[in-house]
């Protein structure tokens, strides 16, 4: 499956891009932000499709943008030998943890394990400190040959490394050569052990639960608004498996609270860095209060939090509309890429240059991408214009020759992923494997079976589960059960003697009977269902077995334990009812004295369960409670 997907993906990437430009989408549909997050719904909007672009157009466009970043003439992804690769910030001639971890996030979202593993190996080999006071952290910038430009870390790199490693663990498991989860845990656990020794600090400030600008004595005194992606901590809380669920929940809440404070209430702009309380950083008389490159990411991050978690719905919707209103007021095709937080233009000193290019204010596609992403949380009409503007914008050099394949390219790709519903929470898919049916059952090999040493009947003909929805077992009263057990699910259910492979029709479903020998004294119906790929909860199981006696066995008692409730008939006579929310206990309920007749006896049972591991054990015992074993079981 995965291989096929890989091949398909590479074909798409290798093919010339199909015409997917400048369509005129429907302009009537009103975009309505969702009110529940993907953690809850496991669903994602495709805003392009909502706006009238075809699914195929959108897929093609997304793959085109992906291809530009990884394989195009202006690609930023470079493979080194067979097993490694890096992502380069071309304009700065280096490799950054930011881009590397972005690359891994993109790779895991696109199910590109090859790309992911290559970038990770390069990261681990050249960037990550394997020991020493910085152990676990990454030098934030390297030359493309792997030489470190800096030993120190920028916390957003670690943030993205951890999240993408957790997603990789969830998507691909941990036994394909890289233990992704262990690698994520290593970064987290190392961070928690930093205590200021050698000036190295935790990634997350312990007083405020907010991410540091850099995890050292200097950069841990403040934070960067664009490092705040609260939903990432929701991911860690669920799947880092690091024993700190509550801490990450707190970190997510603190991060959301911080964003409220740091964002300007009129423009929705924020400074590139701030104090933990959201106030701007002052150095002597100079107040650092400018929205520049780092800050571009804030609208996209908040949109991601909205899309995934939606716990801060009201504020985030206001924020989204406010920031789009601001940029719209500056002209959707002309707004520049740096502003003071109050909306004024920065002066010469405040404008940041990028790479070797001269200082200038430009209309950048990276910022257009992130502001367009904010449309996920906007209900106003102009949000469509941002999405269309992004769709139609070409990633090409500015009039002054400026071109940023890296930052603009990656932010644009993320925006297309996010707006098309392809930047997703990846829940665990491959941490474990459903045990095989054969672990619990074997096919009947001999004609006759005997009860086991303790008299338990292990050979049964079992019907695949009948759908019987019950969200809890609280309602298993005697009356409920009589109704449920005497209801006719299939014809002649009280007399039918099924064979292996027999089929009965229940509603429109055909269910098959399976003659099985249980490998344990108890019959694990849950594992029968899971082993056959059938539903396991909210179910009802029928079981039949044939008991052949050479002579009458009087004064026998049927002894049953079941999870959950069950009813049993011997030769058509109701013999036992086990009611209530019950656990499987050997000899839990025992029938009155009965006679197993010479010849054939039919033992029939039905077990019901809402949530729980359905199973039962049944045997016949004598007057003194000792097992009866002088009969054979023949279901062949």
């Amino acid at each position, binding site marked *: 499956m995965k291989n096929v997907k890989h091949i398909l993906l590479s074909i798409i990437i290798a093919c010339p891009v199909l015409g997917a430009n400048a369509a005129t989408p429907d302009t009537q549909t009103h975009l309505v932000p969702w009110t529940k997050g993907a*953690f809850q719904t*496991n669903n994602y909007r495709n805003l392009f499709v909502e706006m009238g672009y075809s699914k195929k157009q959108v897929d093609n466009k997304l793959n085109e943008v992906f291809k530009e970043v990884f394989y195009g003439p202006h690609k930023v992804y470079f493979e080194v030998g067979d097993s490694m690769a890096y992502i380069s910030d071309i304009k700065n001639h280096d490799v950054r943890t930011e881009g590397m971890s972005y690359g891994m996030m993109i790779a895991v979202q696109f199910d590109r394990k090859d790309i992911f593993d290559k970038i990770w190996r390069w990261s681990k080999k050249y960037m990550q400190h394997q020991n020493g006071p910085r152990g676990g952290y990454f030098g934030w910038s390297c030359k493309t040959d792997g030489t470190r430009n800096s030993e120190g870390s920028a916390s957003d790199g670690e943030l993205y490394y951890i999240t993408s490693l957790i997603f990789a663990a969830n998507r691909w498991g941990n036994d394909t050569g890289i233990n992704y989860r262990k690698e994520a845990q290593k970064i987290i*656990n190392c961070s*928690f*052990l930093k205590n200021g020794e050698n000036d190295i600090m935790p990634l997350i400030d312990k007083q405020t639960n907010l991410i540091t600008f850099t995890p050292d004595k200097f950069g841990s005194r403040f934070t960067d608004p664009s490092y705040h992606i609260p939903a990432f901590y929701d991911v860690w*809380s*669920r*799947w880092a*498996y*690091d*024993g*700190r*669920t*509550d*801490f990450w*929940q707190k970190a997510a809440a603190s991060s959301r609270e911080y964003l409220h404070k740091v964002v300007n209430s009129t423009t929705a702009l924020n400074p590139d860095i701030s104090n933990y309380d959201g106030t701007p950083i002052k150095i002597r008389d100079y107040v650092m209060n400018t929205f520049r490159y780092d800050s571009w990411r804030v609208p996209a991050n908040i949109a991601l939090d909205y899309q995934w978690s939606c716990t801060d719905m009201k504020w985030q919707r206001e924020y989204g509309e406010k920031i789009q209103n601001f940029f719209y007021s500056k002209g959707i095709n002309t707004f520049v890429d740096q502003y003071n937080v109050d909306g004024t233009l920065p002066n010469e000193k405040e404008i940041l240059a990028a790479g070797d290019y001269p200082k200038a204010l430009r209309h950048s596609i990276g910022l257009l991408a992130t502001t367009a992403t904010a449309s996920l949380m906007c209900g106003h009409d102009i949000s469509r214009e941002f999405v269309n503007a992004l769709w139609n914008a070409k990633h090409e050099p500015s009039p002054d020759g400026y071109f940023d394949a890296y930052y603009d390219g990656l932010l644009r790709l993320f925006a297309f992923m996010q707006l098309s519903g392809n930047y997703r*929470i990846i*829940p*665990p898919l491959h*941490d*474990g*494997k*459903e*045990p095989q049916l054969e672990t619990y059952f074997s096919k009947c090999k001999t004609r006759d079976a005997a009860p086991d040493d303790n008299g338990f009947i292990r050979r049964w003909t079992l019907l695949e589960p009948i759908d019987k929805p019950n969200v*809890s*077992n*609280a309602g298993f009263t005697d009356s409920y059960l009589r109704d449920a057990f005497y209801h006719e699910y299939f014809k002649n259910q009280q007399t039918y003697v099924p064979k292996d492979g027999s089929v009965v029709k229940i509603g429109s479903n055909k269910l098959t009977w399976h003659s099985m020998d249980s490998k344990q*004294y108890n019959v694990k119906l849950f594992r029968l269902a899971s082993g056959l790929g059938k539903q396991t909860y909210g179910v009802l199981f029928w079981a039949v077995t044939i008991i052949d006696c050479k002579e009458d066995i009087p004064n026998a008692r049927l002894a049953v*334990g079941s*999870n*959950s409730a069950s009813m049993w008939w011997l030769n058509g006579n109701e013999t036992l009812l086990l009611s*209530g*929310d*019950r*656990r*499987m*206990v*050997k*000899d*839990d309920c025992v029938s009155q004295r009965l006679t197993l007749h010479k010849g054939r006896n039919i033992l029939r049972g039905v077990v019901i*369960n*809402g*949530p*729980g*591991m359905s199973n039962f*054990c049944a045997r016949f015992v004598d007057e003194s409670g000792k097992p009866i074993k002088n009969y054979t079981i023949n279901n062949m």
Partner: protein
Amino acid sequence: MTSFHNIFIALSAMLTLSQSANAQIGQPYIHDPSTIMECNGKYFTFGTGGGGLISDDGWNWKSGAVRPGGGAAPDAIKIGDRYLIAYGNSGGGLNGGHNAHIFTMWNKSLDPKSPDFKFTEPIEVASSDGYEDNDAIDPGLLLDPTSGKLWMSYGTYFGNIRIVELDPKTGDRIPGNKPVDIAIDCEATDLIYRDGWYYLLGTHGTCCDGVNSTYNIVVGRSQNILGPYIDNVGRTMFEGGGRMVISANNRAVGPGHFGREIIDNGVEVMSCHYEADFNRSGRSVLAIRPLLWKNGWPVAGDSFKEGDYAIISERRGYALELSVDFVRIPQKQQAFWHINPNDPIESLPNQQLADVIGTWQKGDISVRTNDYMCRPNQLWTITAIPEAGGYLGGPYYKITIKGTNRALTATANAEVSTVPEFTGKLEQQWRIEQLTDGTYRIMPRVIPGKAEPNTHYVLYSAGDSTPTLALYDFNTDNSKWNFK
């Protein structure tokens, strides 16, 4: 069958309620309490959802214990001078699930006010992959006194209960140690050891359904830590076996999550939660009950109930009484060979307090033990003193002669006497604890002039007829009393 473990229990803003016979006082709201730990003279228990309860005296509980990590159903154990906490986190895919992990962390103190209070970073010690027959939450810890080894049982109804070995120095899993399956269909297990036997306690029934929860605690035992754990009818816990330890009380239902606390030799209590206390809006509350041992099986005793009692020595079966004149009850005596069986039967009245009180001295009256004759000087009213607080599992009581305020008191020379009026002095306050054999020890809160609080001197039979205060010794009946 349910295993809703990630229930968040609100612990704040609770009503003030009058004392409940079943539960601790204060705001003892908790689910899945860990074994109670004593630290800096205070008591601590941690619950599901983080945090936990704290008590200065073991009787009055409020929220305030601090445990990081979140997750569910922690357990705690003291090893050397440190506390080890184990707790489980269910990963929970988008569809919930049983991908779960157990972590341990140390702390030198459990008291958030202590300068030593600092948890170490969590270490994963066990996990389940979400599919296998196990759900790695609900840890229970045992430091094996015979071997010094540290064991942990864990699991829920999803599959099997397992046991693993941890390193008591690091709290980490012993390298290479493989889990062993020891039970099915249990939750919230705990391991304890006594007299050559290992006991596996598990919770059966339905949790988290308020006043309809059927949770109950059962036990099996083994002479091998790895089982098989066998119940009283020879069934293994792998077959669903288990002997009842505690089920519903008349006003509280759904006991779960056993913990054992040894207070003294022969003085044990068990902690658990009740899923619902009918006297407290059906909330889940902490419960502490005496733990008795009957024929080698642990069973919950009843919390002591206020009332009128004769206090009978285990030594001789004599009753504790005021040393006052024996006042004869007048009766027309007939020689038994003269009784006409056809004469009407007459019911004779008991001797009344009013009949005798005039003959009693006015000041302090000493006490002795004597033949029990149902006389007013032998009948005591035992009442909790709400404002006095308590100890692990119970409140302090006053013990007065029925119908009077004459109160039993400890004296400065470590003897026992009565004062004409109960004044609330600490030496008039008594701690009553049921012992593991079902008898009781009765202990004054303080002995004037001795170190406070008194935790060693109990009401004691110096002779058959002579009570005193002496060092508690479970191995002599002199320390033990019964109420009837």
